[in-house]
């Protein structure tokens, strides 16, 4: 059966093409749910999901929360700024206390790489990484790939250029793992100060000349430049960055004529992406947001469903009706 046998989503590293395609195939169906007038299905009814956001977020947080609600899960939101973390409570204590209230899934964003992995070691609940430090942001990687697959059908042999601050970007890392698993050609481009040494070992090419990198590209994924990088001395000025690395209509002359432009948001208009490109025909930035919701519903459903199956194997069935008939009959 086409299903996903994973308890957590910590990153796309190590995921194979089948697993990624299972999530994306399901997301196609979930996209339709958000187009109904009643945008809700009972798939995760009775499940409790905690959104633990130790770092600010607009898009990802709202997207996860809507995805959970549209699957009928009960959700609780936690932000570090209004919690006992301010009084010095550790991550472990915070989470163990929350888990003592019987929850089924944790969605976590944290500024430290590895925080979701750490949680997955100490809790019974399923853990979904919503971005951890400079490590991974797997649902963003999945939604970017979903958007590409929706445009192209298949990714194999397509050229995707990721431009910008690769070094600090968890979005880039999740995209790389997913795109490489699906046999896309991945080219990274950005200032050498923001390019990790040895990243080629992930199966990608590095090209420091933007026009050369963009030659014949089918898609450009523009990474956000974090303004504090300039203070750290990694960039001379934002003006210069915009001129050399910014994606504007001039840069897009080098790409294939139907090249699409993606950005994970939030955008610095006029820095990494020019105003007219961001609002232009090639940009699919708002489609990415729409797709993000569908992809997150698919992830929650597949991870939550697998989790329920595991529960069933390890715990005794309580008095409820068990319908163990083969599904070939009615629910095929």
């Amino acid at each position, binding site marked *: *059966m086409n299903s996903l046998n994973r308890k957590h989503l910590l990153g796309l590293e190590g995921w194979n093409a089948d697993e990624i395609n299972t999530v994306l195939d399901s997301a196609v169906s979930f996209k*339709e749910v958000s187009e*109904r007038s009643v945008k809700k*299905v*009972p798939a995760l009814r009775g499940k409790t999901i905690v959104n633990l956001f130790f770092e600010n977020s607009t898009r990802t947080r709202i997207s996860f929360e809507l995805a959970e609600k549209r699957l009928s899960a009960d959700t609780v939101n936690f932000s570090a700024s209004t919690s006992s973390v301010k009084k010095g409570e550790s991550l472990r204590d915070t989470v163990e206390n929350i888990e003592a209230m019987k929850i089924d899934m944790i969605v976590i964003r944290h500024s430290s790489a590895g925080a979701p992995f750490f949680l997955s070691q100490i809790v019974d609940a399923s853990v979904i990484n919503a971005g951890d430090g400079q490590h991974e942001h797997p649902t963003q990687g999945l939604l970017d790939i979903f958007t590409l697959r929706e445009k192209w059908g298949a990714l194999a042999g397509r050229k995707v250029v990721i431009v910008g601050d690769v070094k600090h970007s968890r979005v880039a890392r999740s995209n790389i793992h997913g795109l490489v698993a699906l046999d896309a050609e991945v080219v990274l481009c950005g200032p050498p100060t923001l390019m990790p040494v040895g990243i080629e070992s992930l199966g990608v090419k590095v090209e420091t000349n933007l026009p050369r990198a963009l030659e014949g590209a089918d898609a450009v994924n523009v990474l956000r430049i974090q303004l504090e990088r300039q203070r750290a001395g990694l960039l001379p000025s934002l003006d210069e960055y915009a001129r050399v690395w910014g994606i504007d209509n001039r840069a897009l002359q080098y790409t294939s004529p139907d090249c699409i432009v993606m950005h994970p948001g939030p955008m610095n208009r006029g820095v990494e992406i020019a105003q007219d490109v961001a609002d232009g025909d090639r940009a699919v930035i708002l489609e990415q947001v729409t797709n993000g919701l569908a992809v997150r519903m698919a992830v929650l459903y597949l991870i939550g*469903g697998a989790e329920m*199956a595991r529960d069933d194997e390890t715990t005794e069935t309580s008095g409820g009706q068990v319908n163990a008939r083969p599904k070939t*009959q009615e629910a095929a």
Partner: protein
Amino acid sequence: MNIRTTATLMEPDQIRRAVKRIAHEIVERNRGVDGLIVVGIRRRGVPLAERIAGYLEQIEGQSVPTGILDITLYRDDFQTITSAPKVGRTEINDDIHERVVILVDDVLYTGRTVRAALDELIDFGRPGRIQLAVLVDRGHREIPIKADYVGKNVPTNEGEIVEVHLEEVDGCDEVILAEKPA
């Protein structure tokens, strides 16, 4: 799973006649096809719904809209299955408010699929009436659900399996009775 076929319950001609008769019954009961929408339950309810809609058009000379319902997200047996099943798309593009919805599935057994389908359908609006058409009713209901149109009633044991094969999905039309391996 290895299953052993024990009997053929319906041949292609019988299936064709049964579906055609169901279409005639639908027209008769609803005095025409005005306000009708034929909705198939994934997977084999879908081609059956298309066939019924085709016959309705032949009989009344008026096209009848169709839809597709995927009930995966409305199932009540998540606790007993080994992994989250694949979710298909639901496609109901017409407003079902106050319309007569003909819900179509291949086999009626426990009734749980129909229960899920009714729940999902009602999330799309308030139909004026919902009627149920099935190719085979094999009995053993676990919830009080009854079909309005039945292609063939087949008394079965609970250990038996009724499989409907349709041209559009399986490459041939037949209904077979099989046994689960002991």
